[in-house]
């Protein structure tokens, strides 16, 4: 066992870890941030996406030891301190970008990484970027629509809610 300190949503969290402790387990079990989900545990589904030093990664496929000293943002860090939703979260709510909500934390973290890189993505660019985020409920349509809306684009011409 060794100690690791990871800054989670701005607050340093120090805990004992093993070499094999995954970042997602550190976040859920040591930092008690359970918004980050484990859908597959095989690097496929993207429910566990968080930002490490500003970069989107699958936290089920990174060791906590490798994030020692890093800044991590999880879905809990996306809303304002007063609980107000970020633009992407509000757009997911407005455009029904979720049904059961299991994939949503990963979707929002991937979407926010995309909009940082590409503030006005096309529909095709959004779909390509979300290849590593799987949703079993929505059929993706309203997720894509929500991300276009969050980037300030007109979505009235996109059919079906």
């Amino acid at each position, binding site marked *: 066992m060794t100690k690791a300190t990871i800054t989670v949503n701005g607050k340093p969290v120090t805990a004992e870890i*093993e*070499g*094999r402790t*995954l970042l997602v387990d550190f976040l859920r079990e040591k930092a008690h941030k359970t918004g980050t989900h484990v859908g597959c*545990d*095989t*690097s496929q589904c*993207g429910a566990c*996406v968080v930002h490490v030093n500003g*970069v*989107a*990664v*699958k936290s089920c*496929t*990174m*060791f906590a*030891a*490798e994030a*020692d000293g890093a800044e991590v943002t999880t879905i809990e860090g996306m809303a304002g301190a007063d609980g107000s939703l970020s633009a992407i979260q509000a757009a997911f709510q407005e455009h029904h970008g979720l049904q059961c909500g299991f994939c949503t934390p990963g979707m929002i973290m*991937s979407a926010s*990484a*995309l909009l940082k890189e590409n503030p006005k993505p096309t529909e095709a660019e959004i779909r390509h*970027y*979300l*290849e*590593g*985020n799987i949703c079993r409920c929505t059929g993706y349509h309203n997720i894509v629509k929500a991300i276009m809306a969050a980037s300030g684009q007109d979505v009235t011409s996109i059919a079906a809610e």
Partner: protein
Amino acid sequence: MYAFDVTRPKTVDEAVAALSQEDAQALGGGQTLIPTLKQRLASPSALVSLTGIEDMKGVCQDGDTLVIGGGTTHGTVASEGGAYPALAALASNIGDPAVRNRGTIGGSLANNDPSACYPSAALASNATIVTNSREIAADDYFQGLFTTALDEGEIITSVRFPIPQAANYQKFVQPASRFALVGVFVSKHADGVRVAVTGASEDGVFRWSDAEDALSGNFSPDAVDGLTASADGLMTDLHGDAEYRAHLIKVLTKRAVAACQ
């Protein structure tokens, strides 16, 4: 996962020393190794993380060669490899963004998955794999399924790609894994054309020499028309049989050449 320690050396020398311990293994981006560890298909006593070694990261152009650090992520090659556009495009279509933010070129080449993308680029470009102790030509490096010329504990520190006159990679995506069902990399150099095929052979990446000869004489998609890729030794799985893969090799080769025009 079985238990192991993780160390994070800052230099190649420290990493080489750490890897000389019994059952120590290098950890690149972990995008292949961590899933393998979860399945208990590997049981190292220690993982030596290469991600803290700054000297192994980055892309730079040296004359007509693109030099990529062994610890450079696919995402960085996609955004900074513009001097070799076909290679940057290949990197930008590996897996998904989160995988590209962690996975490294050194890890991909060391792993030599028979369906991985980079091995075809390295073989078609006649790249040189540079390790902590020597330089290995791509033609000598790939030695079969998940097998390479690397010795135990040897680290890929960089890869040198001669920049071709024209090149293109065509990947027929296997949509569940996002690896190549078949991928063909065509690369035209002053001394001829090289065609490397991934995702098809039971022995991993290989050169399609008939197409190379035909294309070196006449670099046009028609040059491949009269050829048939042999289905002998090609993979058969639930996604496609050997004959289907052989057919794809020809189709993708033609598309790659057409895209170079």
